[in-house]
């Protein structure tokens, strides 16, 4: 049999998975749009034009204008930055907290484990959206607050995942060997076990970005998220609700953008999962 590196095996499988590639392209396009927003948008997203209020899509405004005559396409292009930022920062926070708590719980077990698991149970039993809504409303809805609060309320699944990985990895020979040569706990946790449990964490992080994008847009839709005039897909949709009988384009396009973005992250995440899982490789070889 020809020898292949794990990485080339991964890429080979990933490329053959059509949906995963679609997901990757969607996510890359999002990065592109967000990075070059000022170049791509035909108008200044905040430019008010009182002569062209609530105009349906036409050639000069491909996605119409809003109640202040602002160009919806330009606002959506700039709104992609919010989606991107919220997704990544919130998931970054959640992943770091989740990895640390999960590693500590799984590695030390006993009382430490029990206390952390109980804490996870408590966090899971408070309806998350209620919690986020209340905290954001009370501490104020700046973009940073939104990212931090979403991060602080979505780490539980990561830590369960990491804990399970640690429980199964910590008695393996390579860990015992590291301990035998006198490696410190910190070194074993981060240098040996964590490295080996990164694959599922990566998958759950990519899927987590999708969740964070949905939560941010829901918050902005309810008027508690990103505050106008800063454009976000959620707050354009919120306008759409106010003008539901007059301007369908305010509802249709931002929602479509959210749908496609979330779909992209989900497809990418599932694609990585399928390409990373060696059990699936074997089933295919058979």
């Amino acid at each position, binding site marked *: 049999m020809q020898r292949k590196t794990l990485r080339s095996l991964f890429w080979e499988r990933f490329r053959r998975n059509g949906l995963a590639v679609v997901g990757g392209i969607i996510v890359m396009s999002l990065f592109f749009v967000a990075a070059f927003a000022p170049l791509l948008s035909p108008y200044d997203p905040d430019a008010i034009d009182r002569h062209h209020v609530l105009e349906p899509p036409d050639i000069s405004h491909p996605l119409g204008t809003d109640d202040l005559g602002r160009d919806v396409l330009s606002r959506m292009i700039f709104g992609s930055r919010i989606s991107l930022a919220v997704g990544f920062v919130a998931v970054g926070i959640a992943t770091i907290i989740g990895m640390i708590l999960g590693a500590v719980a799984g590695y030390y077990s006993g009382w430490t484990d029990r206390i952390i698991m109980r804490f996870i149970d*408590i966090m*899971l039993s408070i*309806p998350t959206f209620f*919690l986020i809504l*209340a905290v954001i409303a*009370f*501490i104020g809805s700046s973009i940073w607050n939104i990212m931090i609060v979403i991060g602080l309320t979505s780490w539980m699944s990561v830590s369960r995942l990491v804990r399970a990985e640690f429980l199964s990895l910590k008695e393996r020979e390579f860990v015992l060997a590291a301990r035998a040569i006198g490696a410190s706990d910190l070194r074993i946790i981060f240098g040996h076990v964590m490295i080996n449990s990164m694959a599922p964490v990566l998958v759950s992080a990519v899927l987590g970005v999708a969740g964070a994008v949905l939560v941010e847009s829901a918050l902005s839709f309810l008027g508690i998220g990103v505050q106008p005039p800063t454009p976000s897909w959620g707050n354009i949709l919120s306008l759409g609700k106010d003008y539901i009988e007059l301007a369908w384009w305010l509802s249709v396009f931002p929602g479509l953008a959210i749908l496609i973005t979330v779909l992209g992250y989900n497809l990418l995440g599932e694609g990585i999962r399928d390409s990373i899982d060696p059990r699936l490789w074997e089933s295919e070889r058979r």
Partner: protein
Amino acid sequence: MLTYLMKRMLELIPTLFGITLISFFIIHLAPGKPTDIFTELNPKITPEAREKLEKYYGLDKPIIVQYGLWLKRIVRLDFGESFSSDHRPVMEKIWNGRKPLIERRLFVTFMINLLSMVVILIIALPLGIFSATHQNTLYDKIATTAVFVGFAMPTFWLALLLMILLGVDLRWLPISQLRSMNYDSLSVMGKAWDLTRHLILPIFVSAFTGLAADSRFMRSSMLEVIRQDFVTVARAKGLPERTVIYRHAFRNALLPIITLMGLSVGSLIGGSVIFENIFGIPGMGQLFYMSVMTRDYPTVMGILTIGAFLTLTGNLLADIGYMLADPRIRAR
């Protein structure tokens, strides 16, 4: 089984305690004092009046004492008095025993969530089973794609689109409230029909995400079960495929679904804020949203606690259901 249940119930106590702790301290995250909402609205308020107000709500005491007092009250389901202008007790706002069921907020939210769970089960399970038994067919591929789109769908957007299409353009369904203006003058049947028409969109929207998740889960659970030996045995002894799938495989594949349903209670309740807000439904989610916006702290704390309690109850019921469904666990 009884000992397991007892143990499970005892474990709930520290969790409940933790929930009250979190609900309480979140309120005190807010800068300033809860009574600021009164004093801000009324700049002429004297320092004495302000102090009196703080004393009335117990805010002059240390925070630990405040927590203790609050805890002592909520054990008796007394969540205090709302800060809003009506000053009614929080519990009365959520569950007013004197009004008809349909006007009690907790009941409205509970009913919609329960009905959407029923809808999820009725639609998602057959879809998932069919997908699994017809793996890699065209139907399976369409269903898989639909599930991905369903996962990614922002429910509030779906709600808006359906409102525009069915409510504004076609005028088939009402788009807000639970009842029409002329509800009181309708006959019993008329009332039931009116309620049903108002409930169709909210229930469909709140069930939508769960629909995608559960049918996907049912599919993978079923796929795992039909590869097991006992299914092969059932086939080998000549049972018709229908019996193999529905009598033998289905029962086993259902077990993880029970757990999933229990775990989804929390997100269903959380989601009620969104759809109750969009459809103007007078439920607990709408009250929560209004209380958050007006900084009505007692009501916010009350609903957070009740929501968490309902979620825990859902998880517990799922555990019990799991035990009833699986004789291996029952025997333990």
